[in-house]
């Protein structure tokens, strides 16, 4: 690697949480992601918008390693993580939520959060029962309060309401010192009050924690994001501030349907 490349890499290490370089993802003949170049600064809050099938969730899967890119590189805080398995990326501070809740229905709420806190620490194989003063258990209790689930502490997750499951989904992503969180439609199916709570939780995150949020609800997306990336047919279509994207005629025509006169 030329010295200048190494130098720029070092410089960007502190600046960029995430760098995607010419990322492609194919499923057979289907091109789900095409030539994606994307950088997200440390602590940045970014929204990814696009219609169904635009490649938003595939983009998340490529970043987390659930479906590694067919070609291209993914760097996380300057480190090339393209060939690392998902759990190694997670241990470096990358977290995500899922469009459809992915929880452990047979375990209680506190167990779910405890496992999330324990996952990025050592002693994952401990054959001892977790003690009350265990750091991961204490972190789990704190997080339980942060997402307002104290009253459901010992309830089996399978018995939680949908809204509460979504809150728990957020809690799992917040566990264990995340540096960048990928939120896949966290507000989907929530009531207006629950959306308000979600916006409040996202707004109260420490500044150093950045996130990328996929959201169909423009109101939510534009309220919680500092920058916006529009995707279309597996490609990045536009990037800019929420205002720029909202007022862009091409975006309005493509995404909001304005300009064709049929809403």
């Amino acid at each position, binding site marked *: 690697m030329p010295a200048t490349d190494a130098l720029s890499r070092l410089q960007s290490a502190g600046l960029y949480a995430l760098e995607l370089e010419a990322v492609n993802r194919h499923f057979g003949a289907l091109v789900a992601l095409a030539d994606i170049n994307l950088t997200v600064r440390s602590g940045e809050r970014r929204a990814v918008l696009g219609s169904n099938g635009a490649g938003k969730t595939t983009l998340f899967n490529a970043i987390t390693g659930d479906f590694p890119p067919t070609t291209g590189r993914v760097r996380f805080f300057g480190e090339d993580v393209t060939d690392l398995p998902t759990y190694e990326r997670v241990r470096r501070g990358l977290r995500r939520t899922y469009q459809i809740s992915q929880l452990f*229905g047979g375990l209680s709420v506190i167990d779910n959060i405890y496992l999330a806190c324990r996952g990025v620490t050592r002693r994952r194989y401990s054959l001892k029962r977790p003690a009350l003063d265990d750091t991961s258990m204490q972190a789990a209790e704190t997080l339980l309060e942060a997402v307002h689930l104290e009253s459901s502490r010992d309830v089996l997750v399978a018995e939680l309401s949908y809204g509460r499951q979504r809150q728990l989904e957020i809690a799992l992503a917040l566990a264990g010192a995340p540096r960048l969180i990928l939120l896949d439609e966290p507000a989907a199916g929530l009531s207006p009050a629950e959306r308000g709570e979600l916006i409040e939780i996202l707004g109260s995150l420490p500044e150093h924690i950045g996130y990328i949020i996929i959201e169909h609800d423009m109101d939510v997306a534009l309220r919680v994001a500092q920058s916006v990336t529009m995707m279309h047919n597996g490609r990045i279509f536009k990037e800019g501030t929420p205002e720029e994207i909202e007022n862009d005629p091409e975006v309005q025509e493509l995404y909001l349907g304005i300009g064709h006169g049929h809403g």
Partner: protein
Amino acid sequence: MDTDRLFNKSNPFAAIPAWSWIIGLLLILYPSFASDFFTYQIGAYSLLLGTVALSLMMLAGYGGMVSLAQLTVAGLAGYLMAILGDNSVGVMGLGWPWWLAVIVSVFAAAIFSAFIGAISVRTEGIYTIMITLAIAVAFFYFVRQNYTLFNGFTGFAGVEPPTLFGIYWRDPVPFYYLSLAVATGFVGAVLNASRSTFGLSLMAIRDNPRRMRALGYNVAAHRIAAYFMSGIIAGTAGVLLVWFNGRISPGTVGVDVVIDILVIAVVGGLRHPIGPFLGAIAFVLLENFAIDLIDRERFNTVIGLAFLLVVIFSPDGILGLWKRLRPKLRLGKSVPSAAAGTTPTDSHVSESVKEV
């Protein structure tokens, strides 16, 4: 997780329910009122088969991995005892001290189990069953055809437990208590492990492996570790089984016996470590007394019918039947809800059985 139960450090025995003490007492007193036949052939044998099935219950009930190679793992430990220790057929029999042979046999069985795990953990459901069945069949043919190490078709005889503290441990009563101690120890260990961080993460992996990866867990490594632990259980039972029979041959690790272990675990119930022992008792009683009811050759028909009936009427096995009957027996008393039990495996056992 029931916090009070979980963090009750002052007296760990306080969490043991009253019925466990009663059953424990009955098991201890059993040889005093049972004949030698019932103590050895029924009691001790049920405990040993139950222990092998317990190793499967741990994998299937907590980890969602139905392995058909558990008896193979036990069989390897049994064969190693004959190879490393003493036997009467004049093949191998390296004459190691019994304690060293036991340690090496159990450890080798656990490593073999971890190896089986390593090649099967990336599969799910029916594919795990197929891979582990293939390993069991391959092991059966290997030991049958290999005469240098495993003495082929004949196998080994004259594999005896040591005489220790002046007791010949193959006598019915001492052997029964030895089997009971091992079985009780492993039930306690499995119950304790199920409430540990490792146990919780194993259950979570069963529920949703993808999410566990997204929380920083190396799912494959966790599953392999579970196979290793189950290998210790199966291997120890294998050592006792070869002492019980005094001999081991390919028939001991045949496909029919391999499947019997699965039948025992499913008939007993996969949601609690006690289930495999209930299944083993039912199996051993049928095995011994079905011929009084039906022709000897029809024994497997009876077992098959019993298996079908249990799976049809109670997917959670005999344990499930008890769970259904209990509210009816407690008429007038308050019945705790299923959720209040917070048995971590409750909601997923039927899925494991369906896979089976």
